[in-house]
């Protein structure tokens, strides 16, 4: 898709993830967290119809339940005892705490399922190379060698199997021995061949001067707009957190879960922040449907 959330500069996208995850960890309030989780599920739905989330759903549910059940078991702080089991008190505060941790966790995991869709491997490599250019180059060379090694090993196996040296049948000891032999051949052979790769690199001027970097992603005016918007919302998030309006006080006395006054405003800006992909992608969906 040419437009939509994915078309923003990788830096902006990375910033979005950092802010939302930070927000999820700061806003320990059931209402805020539930709103966040629902928004993130919506984000998933609009990005890929929830395909990626679907793959992870059992994992997420299991982890959330695990945390939700075990937190009240170990957390013994609170005033309101719900019930007692095996001479152990279960406090309402601890149950709420458990729910909030579970919500935070599932929110972060659900958000991460979109990470692969939004920040694809080449965008990730681009970001990586911005921070660690040398390591990124090594990583890219390694990425090239993976399929090459796999193919060579398959070739070696074929040729040696025809000679009667095999990793497939025989005693375990023999199989292991042959396998080691194959790896040894693979390495010797690959080292030989890598000399040519090194020649080809230096023939194209590698190491003569500082490398420049190709900017695969240009900074557009929309990226500025989005960046300013993101920073504004994150500032609001920060103020909300500082003012304690967005955190549920558990001790010394449990606060009411109902939102009051300014809290509503912060909730609005919080939802607005998380659902940025929904606005940007949704615009495209509407446009395409409209023009059809």
């Amino acid at each position: 898709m040419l437009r939509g959330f994915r078309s923003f500069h990788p830096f902006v996208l990375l910033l979005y993830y950092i802010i939302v995850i930070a927000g999820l960890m700061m806003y320990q309030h059931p209402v805020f967290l539930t709103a966040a989780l629902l928004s993130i599920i919506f984000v998933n739905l609009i990005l890929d119809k929830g395909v990626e989330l679907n793959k992870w759903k059992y994992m997420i549910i299991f982890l959330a339940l695990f945390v939700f059940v075990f937190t009240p078991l170990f957390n013994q702080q609170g005033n309101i005892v719900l019930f007692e089991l095996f001479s152990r008190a279960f406090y309402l505060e601890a149950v709420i705490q458990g729910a909030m941790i579970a919500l935070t966790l599932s929110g972060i995991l659900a958000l991460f399922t979109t990470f692969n869709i939004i920040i694809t491997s080449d965008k990730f490599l681009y970001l990586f190379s911005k921070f660690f250019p040398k390591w990124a180059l090594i990583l890219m060379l390694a990425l090239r060698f993976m399929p090459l090694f796999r193919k060579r090993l398959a070739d070696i196996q074929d040729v040696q199997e025809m000679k009667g040296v095999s990793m497939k049948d025989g005693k375990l000891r023999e199989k292991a021995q042959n396998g080691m032999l194959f790896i040894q051949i693979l390495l010797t052979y690959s080292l030989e061949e890598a000399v040519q790769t090194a020649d080809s690199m230096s023939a194209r001027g590698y190491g003569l001067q500082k490398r420049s970097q190709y900017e695969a992603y240009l900074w557009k005016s929309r990226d500025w707009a989005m960046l300013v918007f993101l920073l504004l919302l994150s500032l609001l998030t920060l103020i909300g957190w500082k003012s304690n309006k967005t955190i549920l006080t558990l001790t010394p006395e449990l606060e009411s879960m109902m939102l009051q006054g300014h809290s509503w405003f912060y909730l609005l800006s919080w939802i607005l922040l998380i659902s940025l992909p929904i606005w940007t992608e949704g615009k495209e969906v509407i446009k395409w449907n409209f023009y059809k």
Partner: protein
Amino acid sequence: MELLQMRNLNFTYPNSSDQALTDINFTVHEGDFVVLCGPSGSGKSTLIRLMKQELNLHGTKSGEIYYQGIPFEQHDAITLAKDIGMVFQDPENQIVMSNVMDELLFGMENLGFSTNEMRKKTAEIVHYFGFNHLLQQDTSELSGGEKQQINLASVLLLDPKILILDEPTAQLDPIAAKNFMYLLKQLNDELGITIIIAEHRLNELFSLANRIVVLEQGKIKFSESPRKALSLLAENMTAYLPEASQLYLAFTGILKTPDIPFHVKEAKQWLKGMDITSNQSQQEEQVKPEKPLLELKEIDFSYSKHTEPVLNNLSLTVQEGEWLAILGGNGTGKSTLLKIIAGLLTAQHGRIRYKGKKVKQIDRKLIGYLPQNPKLYFLHETLQEEYTALATKHGKSETEVQTLVKEFQMEALLDRHPYDLSGGELQRAALVGILIGNPQILLLDEPTKGMDPAFKEEFASIIQTVKHTGVTIMMVTHDVEFAAKHVTRCSMLFQGEVIVTEDTTAFFKDNDYYTTMINRITKDSQVPTVVTVEEAKASWQMKKALPSSV
């Protein structure tokens, strides 16, 4: 303008008593298309590598190389890296990045181009080469020809004045090789890039180059225009000539003529002036009793359930004691067929019979397999260790191995590491190893790839000796000329099916496109149709040779 100049260049590798290059003097002018040729070990690669400063060849060098009149040492390293571009032999090993776009950018990033420059230049080159569809692909998914084009493009992006190529088509199939050569011609004609290429596949190059330099034992034998080079080569390096010229030489015997034909059109012209009849007695082939060794019936194979079948309803019979060639384009399933016979893959449908008996898989011990890359065959440090291990495995005595080693003249090489052998020696060494196992069938996978013409002949005679010991040989190849010369029968594979299997001569005589140069020359002419120079020599009778009028 003199672009590159070598004066009194000598070079010796460390720990070597012989000079690799002796007194090299030659000049390359702007816009030249120079071909360096000569047998393996003649110093081609050394010379070519010396022209590229960054490769930093180890050894002692005397003499000077000048670029634009200034010695290499006084040039800025970056200017040299930019102006002199180099493409190597192996398409795979030159590629550094995992995706095509990054590979194209690699050189430009090294030399500090800005993003805007890189964008513009890639856009231009992608358009010029027409590989828009490859840009987002992984480099490991490309064919050999495509890989070599990417390598070329990646070098061209640096705006070289001179392009140096070290046997760039040796690993490509004939079609891809031809396309690559014409691409070079296009660069030379349209962009004026000077080209220096080392190569022993000269057929196309004679009509593309404007100068041929022949090296022998580290010395320049001559450096002439293609026409002159042709008559000089005719004296004692006929194997390097195009078949058309070989045919001419076989029948005229006149040397030093300025007009030896080197392509089909010219040779046809020359034949018009000839009166040739065929020598009937030679035509009759002795009919050999057929004894099928291996029969494949209605073989179907696909790599997975949902992919297109690679082999489809394939039937093939291999006769005992024959040398069968399997020909066909890329991706027609040639290598897959070999793997099925070898038992490395199992066909989903179909039957295999060995000596008339139905088998599920042929016993591995009966099959010898010479891989495309013989380096992969060796597991031990020296040949001696390898052979000893194989002998114990197959229960062979030391003396039996000794006889084989002697027969293939490998005595002197027994203590060497396999990787220190030359390409030809390596193949011989692997063959000895295979023959220790006493195979009944020998499978060869593209054996002539990257061989120089002289070694091809030697290899053919080695295989003939193996064949005379009663081993049946099956070869997968692209090399039409080689197959026509040496093989008993040919099969054509097309879309996963053997569409025809015939005796070599009959096979090539019928074909119009997939055939030898000699057949294309003699087909539909007044002279008897032949397939190889040897056949012409044996079967043609010349009534009178009219003075050639080309």
